[in-house]
């Protein structure tokens, strides 16, 4: 395995993906667009200058991990039951490993995995009735004792793509990638984000967090200004590993950025695609023949547009995003709430989401922040549909690679339950990049 000169820098830089709106101060270079943006991101986060050229290296491994302590409590009893735990609990969170190969200066392959203890302990409600809990414990038949238990975990493939870097203006990425949308979805790693809790539009996937397809991206540099673009075509939102329709999802993102003491990045993102869920049935015909049939049970088109703004001035950081999503179903192809009388259906709707974070870093170690979020989905079918969340937190940077992140949030929202719900979150994570 060969690594570059600054493995920490490279690790953090790669956690940060191309197209982020947070990059502020690095001078645009003539290297491939993604590498320069990653370096700029890195500098913004860890306060280091990384002068990295696109020197090829064979194979690199890096990543981040976090552990935490949290307590989530709901004032609404029935919602509290739906939470994984209302008790104070230690958490083994993200264990993300990046495997990167650069066979030459213009080609790169990246696989980001998350080693997880999930799905053990996951509760699932299948309509009314007793929930089911996933139990992955099995007897380790290969152990000398022959009877001790092990918990099987899981591997989350966060992204896996091949990349061809032609020049600043044209780069091609193919595979499974993060949707280039706004600030948060691209800067997804715990070390790079200001707050711990994700905005609802990502938690609820108002846009698909990941897509499988092709992404074009590039940049134009005119110091101190810079213009970047992303274009995507993909399978879009799908419940399988394939596209269930021939309609492909398209997306775009454009960011205008000013670099310097006053850093500004203003971006806009767009996504349009269709979704279809289908059911396959094996049955016997009246003539006693076996037949397979396929039925589309849910089908809709969705269009989303968003805008985001990043401002950096000395120790201050402001991040804000807003988005609108429109969902229109085909007639008779709607999800029904089977646990409700007369099985009401999910309506066509326009959903609105927005958040803003203001942070100030001082003495190089401390970064308190406040975070406000609102949403209105114009439906009442899922866990969080309308309301707000107000939170505050502080990040403590022990070293450029290690930080403690803490956040308290008070959320008030409406959902499928009859009463308005109030939930308080106290979450913390000790994070290390490596």
């Amino acid at each position, binding site marked *: 395995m060969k690594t570059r000169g600054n493995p920490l820098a490279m690790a953090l830089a790669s956690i940060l993906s191309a197209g982020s709106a947070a990059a502020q101060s690095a001078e645009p270079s003539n290297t491939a667009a993604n590498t320069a943006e990653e370096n700029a991101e890195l500098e913004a986060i860890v306060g280091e200058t990384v002068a990295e050229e696109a020197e090829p290296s064979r194979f690199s491994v890096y990543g981040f991990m976090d552990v935490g302590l949290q307590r989530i409590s709901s004032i609404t009893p029935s919602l509290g039951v739906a939470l994984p735990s209302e008790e104070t609990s230690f958490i083994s969170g993200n264990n993300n490993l990046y495997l990167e190969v650069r066979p030459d200066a213009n080609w790169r392959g990246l696989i980001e995995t998350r080693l997880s203890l999930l799905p053990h302990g996951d509760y699932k409600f299948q309509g*009314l009735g007793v929930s089911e809990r996933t139990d992955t414990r099995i007897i380790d038949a290969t152990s000398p004792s022959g009877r001790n238990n092990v918990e099987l975990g899981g591997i989350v493939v966060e992204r896996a793509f091949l990349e061809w870097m032609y020049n600043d203006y044209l780069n091609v990425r193919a595979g499974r990638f993060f949707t280039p949308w706004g600030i948060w979805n691209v800067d997804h790693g715990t070390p790079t984000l200001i707050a711990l809790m994700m905005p609802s539009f990502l938690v609820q996937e108002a846009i698909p967090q990941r897509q499988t397809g092709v992404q074009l991206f590039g940049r134009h540099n005119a110091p101190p200004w810079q213009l970047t673009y992303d274009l995507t075509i993909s399978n879009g939102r799908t419940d399988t590993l394939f596209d269930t329709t021939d309609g492909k999802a398209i997306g775009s993102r454009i960011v205008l950025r000013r670099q310097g003491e006053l850093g500004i990045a203003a971006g806009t993102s767009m996504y349009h695609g269709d979704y279809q869920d289908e059911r396959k049935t094996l049955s016997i015909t009246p003539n006693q023949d076996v037949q397979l049939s396929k039925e589309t049970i849910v089908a809709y088109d969705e269009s989303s547009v968003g*805008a985001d703004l990043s401002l950096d001035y000395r120790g201050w950081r402001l991040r804000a995003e807003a*988005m*609108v999503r429109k969902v229109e179903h085909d007639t008779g192809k709607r999800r029904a709430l089977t646990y409700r009388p007369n099985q009401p259906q*999910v*309506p*066509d709707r326009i959903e609105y989401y927005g958040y803003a974070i203001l942070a100030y870093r001082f003495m190089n170690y401390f970064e308190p922040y406040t975070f406000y979020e609102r949403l209105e989905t114009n439906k009442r079918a899922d866990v969080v549909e309308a309301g707000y969340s107000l939170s505050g937190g502080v990040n403590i940077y022990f070293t450029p690679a290690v930080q403690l992140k803490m956040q308290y949030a008070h959320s008030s929202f409406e959902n499928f339950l*009859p009463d308005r719900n109030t939930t308080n979150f106290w979450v913390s994570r000790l994070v290390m990049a490596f």
Partner: protein
Amino acid sequence: MRTPISIALLCLLTAAACEIDEPCDPGYELKAGLCQKVVAGGADAAATATTMCIDKPGPDAGASDAAAPAAPTGEFGRPCTDDTNHSECAEPAPLCFKQQGAASGFCSAINCNIYCNVCPATWTCFDLSLVQPGSPHGCVKL
């Protein structure tokens, strides 16, 4: 939430997209964030349909010489655990509804599809056979 400036600006960019003509399929209407089935004749007819029920006979029905019934002491939604003798529940919610496997349940009433005004205003008359085949309709807070 519908009118923050940022959202309004986004809608200006996509003015035509910020409208929904018919949020539900034919035969459904939008109520409380969901597409609910429309009963023929509209809302009034729907109300009428739900009142196609009979008055619930009182505990002294057919016994004119019985003592006056005691005042109701029960309460819808009161927590309970005894779903055999229903000892913790009383009229107007005399039965303990407890889902299979659950440690506790709540006091409610059944046959709300037969008798009028069994359920409180904020509760729904629900077909419990969807949960447990053979069960009657019962009042559930949904």
